[in-house]
């Protein structure tokens, strides 16, 4: 690691208190929502027996996927030896931990029996991808704390373990995101999910979301703590973001073209791409245009080079694109009717053959916001009590060849 870099805790003061209050308020709202849903049952949500996973799952999957991507910033420094990324590693690990905890909390608190969490930890079905994920998520947290220790401890032992920890974290992360993508990849019954490409697609998406969130947190942290943040670092993040957005587009193209070739999938494809209402809008408007093309333009437009506002907007839009994608896959995929009898019109009292509608309820939204609050609070506290942020990320500090 660059020896000239020194790390220090963020200062306290009014800004810190304000952040605590805001994130604490979000958490309180989320917790109240959980109590309300737990007390009443899921009939107070917009979810039903047709759309069984709703907005809480969009939040949860978003954060879990982003967690893996946030840790990628650290991996680039450790595994690929890019020196400029190494000072960014500590914050990346904390953001990853915070995102994973926030996402898991939302997921767990939406369970029909959140009180039976201990059952989920003592009864395992080894064939279930959920079971793999319980192991992957728990392992991820442990590895991330270990990785952070190797970055922060000054002992020789810690330093000697820095590289191995980075490699383990890198591999674990990839498997974890594949596990999350595979939740959808192996559902044979659903027209929109049954594709193994979901696994690499989710890995690439995780890089986009993680980089975008990392960039926004870094910019906010340096602005609010009055530290210097140079263009060299930001430009690395900027181009990383755009390249991964392009990679997601490539996988999306492959996925949809594959589906379009198979007659079996024509129905769902025309639903998502042409006449799915909100889902078509989210795909073209949210994911493709606002979430992919505009951010790529903002990054690669030469006139906007070193423009931080453009980068911030690009990162925010990339997050919007990611949310659109997850909402589309999750809710859109469920809203399309199951095919019981191909080439037939199917009707029943259980809404067979009907495009299901879903309107998220306020408690679901607040539960998700509570999870985001937990993530932000953990980051704020982490930055305050641990030496995560380099005192300066000015170009002359991060780049030894800077003149």
């Amino acid at each position, binding site marked *: 690691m660059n020896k000239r870099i020194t790390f220090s805790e963020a200062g306290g003061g009014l800004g810190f208190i304000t952040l605590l209050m805001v994130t604490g308020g979000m958490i309180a709202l989320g917790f109240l929502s959980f109590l309300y849903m737990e007390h009443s049952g899921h009939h107070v949500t917009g979810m039903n027996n047709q759309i069984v996973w709703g907005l809480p799952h969009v939040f949860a999957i978003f954060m879990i996927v982003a967690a893996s991507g946030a840790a990628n910033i650290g991996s680039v420094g450790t595994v690929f030896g890019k020196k400029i990324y190494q000072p960014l590693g500590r914050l990346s690990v904390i953001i990853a931990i915070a995102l994973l905890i926030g996402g898991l909390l939302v997921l767990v608190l939406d369970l029909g029996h959140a009180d039976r969490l201990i059952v*989920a930890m003592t*009864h395992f079905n080894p064939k279930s991808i959920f079971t793999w994920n319980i192991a992957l998520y728990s392992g991820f947290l442990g590895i991330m704390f270990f990785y952070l220790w190797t970055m922060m401890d000054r002992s020789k032992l810690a330093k000697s373990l820095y590289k191995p920890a980075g490699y383990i974290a890198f591999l674990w992360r990839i498997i974890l995101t594949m596990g999350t993508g595979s*939740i959808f990849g192996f559902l044979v019954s659903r027209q929109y999910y049954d594709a193994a490409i979901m696994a690499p697609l989710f890995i690439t998406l995780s890089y986009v979301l993680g980089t975008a969130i990392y960039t926004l947190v870094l910019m906010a942290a340096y602005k609010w703590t009055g530290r210097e943040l140079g263009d060299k670092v930001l430009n690395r993040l900027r181009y990383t973001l755009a390249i991964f957005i392009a990679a997601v587009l490539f996988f999306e193209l492959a996925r949809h073209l594959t589906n379009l070739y198979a007659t079996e999938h024509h129905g769902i494809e025309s639903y998502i791409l042409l006449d799915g209402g909100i889902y078509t809008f989210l795909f073209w408007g949210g994911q493709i245009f606002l979430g992919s093309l505009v951010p790529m333009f903002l990054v690669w437009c030469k006139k906007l080079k070193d423009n931080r506002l453009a980068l911030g907007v690009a990162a925010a839009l990339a997050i919007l694109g990611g949310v659109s994608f997850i909402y589309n896959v999750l809710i859109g995929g469920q809203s399309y009717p199951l095919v*019981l*009898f191909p*080439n037939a019109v199917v009707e*029943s*009292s*259980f809404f067979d053959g009907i495009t299901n509608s879903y309107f998220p309820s306020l408690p679901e939204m607040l539960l998700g916001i509570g999870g985001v609050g937990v993530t932000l609070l953990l980051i704020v506290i982490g930055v305050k009590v641990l030496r995560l942020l380099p005192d300066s990320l000015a170009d002359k500090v991060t780049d030894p060849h800077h003149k």
Partner: protein
Amino acid sequence: MSDRNHMHQNVDQNRGDDGNINAYRRQFMASVVGISGVATVATIAPGIILQQAQAKPADEMVTNKVRWGLLIDTSRLTDGGDACVEACKKEHGWGNEKLSNKEQDAQWIRKVKVTEKMTGHVTSLPVMCQHCDTAPCVDVCPTGASMKRADGIVLVNKHICIGCRYCMMACPYKARSFVHETLTDQRPYSPRGRGVVESCNMCVHRVDAGKKPACVEAAPEAILFGDLNDKESDISKALKEFGGTQIRADLGLNTGVRYRGI
């Protein structure tokens, strides 16, 4: 009481630890009422009788020597399956949720009307859990609550279901429902609970007592129930002679519920 015990014991015998608990329960009950394990009827209080009358003794393991199945002949279903749905509702006590909306209501079995687009041919059939041999719901369940008994009956162990609904995502037949509200006045032999997933369990309590599922009794002229492994059973003979169709046979799930006339 006894019926519920039958179901749970059979469910639990696939799980070693819970099996011990049941052994303990039996021992406890025996000591309370002063009967030995072999007694079949005992009066535990005036008017309350503990009865163990069934085809298969409750502590006998469910084996894979039998595989229970249904053959539904849609051409003989005069009402398209309405009577089956009503019988199931009555048997298991579903269909009267008060707070849930229609999309949230549980449906263990439903009548599906199929109109072929090209010919306009219309068929009606009851659709419920198809009791797959390789059930996707069993594969995806993180806790093993969604399970298949050795005799082929697929059901939910409601004690360890955490309500994640992954099985509902995985089921190709939309056979499962999640309970969205607190329920009261349940059938003792078919307990249901808020926050838990449920579905047709082929009336496991009746099957273990040597009886036929409620839907079969409601449409005896159209539905055959029996052991698919027994070549001499009526259902096996009918399937051999006339064949039977699986819904979404392309998925290769080898369903225990077969149809004729679709």
